[in-house]
């Protein structure tokens, strides 16, 4: 479905702590045309003196409706995210532009599509947000395509959508700073071997979506190519600094 991007005025209806550094923000956008899973929007803030700052945020929700969910991690010293995480309150209005991006999106297979390829999602930190949207759109569609998520995250407390992910099958975690008690492997960054062990192998021809900090995405994407995945089956979205 074509959903043209335009500017909207959104009203904050809920805010809640997502992790110690991130916040879930629920917006009501009366003019929203709905969005594909994985797409993003640009938020524009205007200071009283007219100065404007704009940043892109992945959308955690998908499908029809005027309820739009974001999960924003604070970038210390950032221009926009500290405001969204600490200052923005229920009832506030923000300007947003969207839905944006047709590249990093997942759509449920059409009826008649034969044997859709399995899907491997790979998240670094808050890069899980658009991938969570894909997982929930997949669940909501009752789609039989195999989906897996490999989620690299600092500590158990930093996991976004913990409750929702616990209810889903096929989620693997890599803890980079601190593991849960009794975790079988020590905390540490993702390795090529860990990626090869957890991700669907190239023989199964998965479609792969990788989202996270730029160094994470580029490291993982290079390893995936070394592991035999064609570049055309790997879609990436970088959000900059970690």
């Amino acid at each position: 479905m074509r959903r043209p991007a335009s500017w909207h005025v959104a009203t904050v209806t809920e805010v809640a702590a997502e992790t110690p550094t991130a916040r879930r923000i629920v917006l009501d956008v009366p003019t929203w045309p709905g969005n594909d899973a994985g797409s993003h929007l640009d938020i524009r803030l205007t200071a009283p003196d007219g100065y404007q700052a704009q940043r892109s945020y992945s959308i955690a929700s998908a499908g029809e409706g005027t309820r739009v969910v974001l999960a924003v991690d604070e970038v210390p010293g950032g221009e926009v995210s500290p405001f969204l995480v600490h200052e923005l309150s229920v009832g506030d209005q923000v300007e947003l532009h969207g839905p944006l991006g047709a590249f990093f999106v997942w759509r449920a297979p059409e009826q008649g599509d034969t044997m859709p390829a399995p899907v491997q999602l790979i998240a670094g930190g808050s890069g899980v947000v658009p991938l969570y949207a894909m997982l929930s759109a997949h669940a909501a569609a009752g789609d039989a395509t195999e989906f897996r998520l490999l989620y690299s995250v600092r500590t158990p407390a930093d996991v976004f959508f913990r409750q929702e992910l616990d209810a889903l099958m096929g989620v693997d975690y890599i803890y980079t700073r601190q593991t849960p008690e009794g975790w079988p492997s020590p905390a540490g960054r993702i390795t090529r071997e860990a990626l090869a062990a957890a991700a669907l192998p190239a023989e199964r021809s998965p479609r792969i979506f990788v989202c996270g900090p730029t160094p994470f995405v580029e490291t993982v994407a290079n390893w995936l190519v070394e592991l035999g995945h064609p570049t055309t089956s790997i879609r990436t979205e970088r959000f900059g600094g970690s």
Partner: protein
Amino acid sequence: MQHLDGNVLAGPLAELFAFDATMASARCGGCGAVELLATAMVYRDAMGTVARCAHCDHVLMTIVEANGRTWVSLPGAVLRAG
């Protein structure tokens, strides 16, 4: 500052194009590689946005947004939609 990628161009380019330009194929004027604009490397600072070829770093596109206006220049790329 870390670079981003062409996904982030969707917003600024939606002000100019009726379609999602990040899904357009861009041919690099430097090395000739043809890739979706969404896969370009993107560098942003207060002055504006520069998209570079992921293969050879050649400048494909610059975007400057100021005073509610957007200027887009494609010095080193040919875009093909559809």
